[in-house]
């Protein structure tokens, strides 16, 4: 599997080259949010705001009111919980073109409960005017800025850093409000987002071998959520729908799909994989995803629940599908 090292770091520098209105704000996590290259390339467009996120949001709002396009970089937890009122009143309400780039979504950090953004989508989804995007691979990371740039209002991006797998062809960019159809099937629909898509791809390969027909969609636009492809997928499958997200099952992808299915009257079962209304703790990504039921095996179990039979998946079946092992697994990545 191809992996890309620090795709955002390199992409942002190239992307912002001919966009003088683009400025970057950072709250003492410049290297950790991969904007050190931007700082070196465009020192006049980089603003260190210190460990003061509330003020950083206000400064971003002021810059946006004057025609700049601020890309605010910090960890997703601090961009949401810590500055919720500031984001609501100074960014979302006036519908300003502020781009909130949130790093370490969900369990992608060994930093433990203080660093794990498990409710960021839920929090920002209830803010009017807000658009929410989530990256699932290097191609998403490299193309999400164009999408954010095109939105005439605030955008929150769940961003990936470090070594990121490339799951989707480079020529196939992230598109606003359009899920990627990764496989077509009629038994179960799997809607995955973020890093769960890589897990779901492996599970889907195993499931197909067991004769299960899987419709697999990768969702990158969590708000607005009006994609006809999603509606079609959840409507046509025989057994039911499974959502899989690196987030609480409350308020994120699982909730938005449940709302859609209920509103349209899709009479299918829905299983929501994700954090089951629990906080997590510090550990490796692989350990946490297994512990909290966000990994490929959890998806197979959920499919078994829907179809009502055991598929008898063995270790040999798993060994046959390639897994992405992020660099630094087993060691603590720099926070």
């Amino acid at each position, binding site marked *: 599997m191809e992996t890309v090292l620090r795709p955002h770091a390199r992409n942002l520098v190239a992307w912002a080259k001919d966009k003088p209105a683009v400025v970057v704000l950072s709250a003492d996590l410049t290297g950790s949010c991969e904007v050190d290259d931007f700082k070196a390339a465009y020192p*006049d467009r980089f603003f260190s705001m210190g460990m003061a996120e509330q*003020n950083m949001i206000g*400064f971003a*709002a002021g810059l946006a009111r*004057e025609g700049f396009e601020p890309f605010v970089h910090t960890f997703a937890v601090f961009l949401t919980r810590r500055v919720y009122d*500031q984001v609501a*009143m*100074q960014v979302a309400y*006036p*519908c300003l073109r502020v781009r909130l780039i949130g790093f370490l979504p969900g369990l992608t950090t060994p930093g433990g409960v203080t660093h794990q953004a498990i409710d960021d989508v839920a929090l920002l989804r209830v803010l009017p005017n807000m658009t929410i995007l989530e990256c699932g691979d290097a191609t998403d990371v490299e193309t999400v800025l164009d999408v954010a740039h095109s939105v005439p209002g605030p955008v929150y991006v769940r961003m990936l850093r470090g070594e990121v797998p490339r799951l989707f062809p480079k020529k196939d960019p992230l598109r606003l409000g359009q899920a990627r159809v990764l496989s077509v099937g009629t038994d179960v629909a799997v809607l995955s987002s973020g890093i769960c898509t890589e897990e779901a791809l492996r599970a889907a390969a195993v499931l197909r071998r067991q004769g299960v027909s899987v419709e697999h969609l990768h969702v990158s636009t969590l708000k607005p959520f009006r994609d006809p492809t999603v509606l079609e997928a959840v409507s046509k499958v025989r057994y039911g729908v499974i959502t899989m997200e690196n987030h609480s099952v409350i308020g994120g992808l699982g909730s938005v799909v449940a709302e859609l299915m209920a509103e349209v009257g899709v009479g299918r079962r829905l299983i929501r994989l994700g954090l089951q209304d629990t906080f997590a703790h510090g550990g490796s990504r692989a350990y946490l995803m297994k512990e909290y039921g966000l990994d490929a095996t959890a998806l197979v179990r959920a499919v078994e629940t829907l179809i009502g039979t055991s598929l008898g998946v063995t270790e040999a079946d798993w060994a046959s599908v390639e897994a992405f092992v992020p660099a630094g697994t087993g060691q603590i990545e720099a926070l």
Partner: protein
Amino acid sequence: MQSPAQVECWSDAARRVAAGIRRRVLEYVLRHGGGYLSQACSAAEILATLYTRIMRLGPSQGPMIPRPFPGVPGPGRPLAGWGGLYNGPRSPDLDRFIFSPVHYALALYATLIEVGRLAAEALEMFNQDGSTVEMIGAEHSPGIEVTAGSLSQALSVAGGIALARKLKGETGRVWVFMSDGELQEGQTWEALMAMAHYRLDHVGIYIDANGQQCDGRVETVMDVEPIAAKLEAFGACVYEVDGHDVEALVAPAERPHPGRPLVVICRTDPCRGIEPLRERAPKLHYVRFRSEAEREAYRAVLEQMEAAQG
């Protein structure tokens, strides 16, 4: 109408506007049985001096009779900062005004009327359903450019506007009016730290230090003193003045403060000009008349004001 401002000196004009602010707010409160009165008493000279002498603003771009509420901002509804139209056009050389404690909105609307940027009838729309002349105004309300009701946030937005103007090479200044209670918010100090760090010396902050907040005296709710020493320690150029002395209010704005934001601590009296208010101390945040006798005492003050102002 031949404006007296054409012949009177600026300080007389500022004092006349300040007296008009108190009179209009008292008149409103009497007519409606309640309102934010002490804020007008403490801030009248500050607002009057800002609008008549300190700020370089162009003519109002807003309608004299405010529009009804146009809806909230959204994609394709570019209403952000609409209330700022009353503070003149956006121009590189002109100043901007960020009004932070929007609970003072009634005093601000009275100011805009006194300086000819708003029709007197606008006060009749105050706090009426569907109106933009809201009790705690937002950025669609006359004179209010930033939705500032969650206190201390506007200072950071002013910092961002000031930084943007510096990047664009604009020469206009950014003025902020705020209250002393907002010094209790941590974000205030984050904003000051950042303004000093980025040497935003085209920012000028006037603080109405009236010593009052919702629960009562600031010193009993959560003491913020010594304000001046704290502000200086955060990198501001600080002046402390009598907030009812228009000459003293103007002086700091005319002195250079290279590399540092200017902060003027205006020591004010929240009962200034309306003596019956003193009986309510220390609860002055919002006044609602308790008896007809109390209302009569305020009515007598209004009559004195009207006689004095002609």
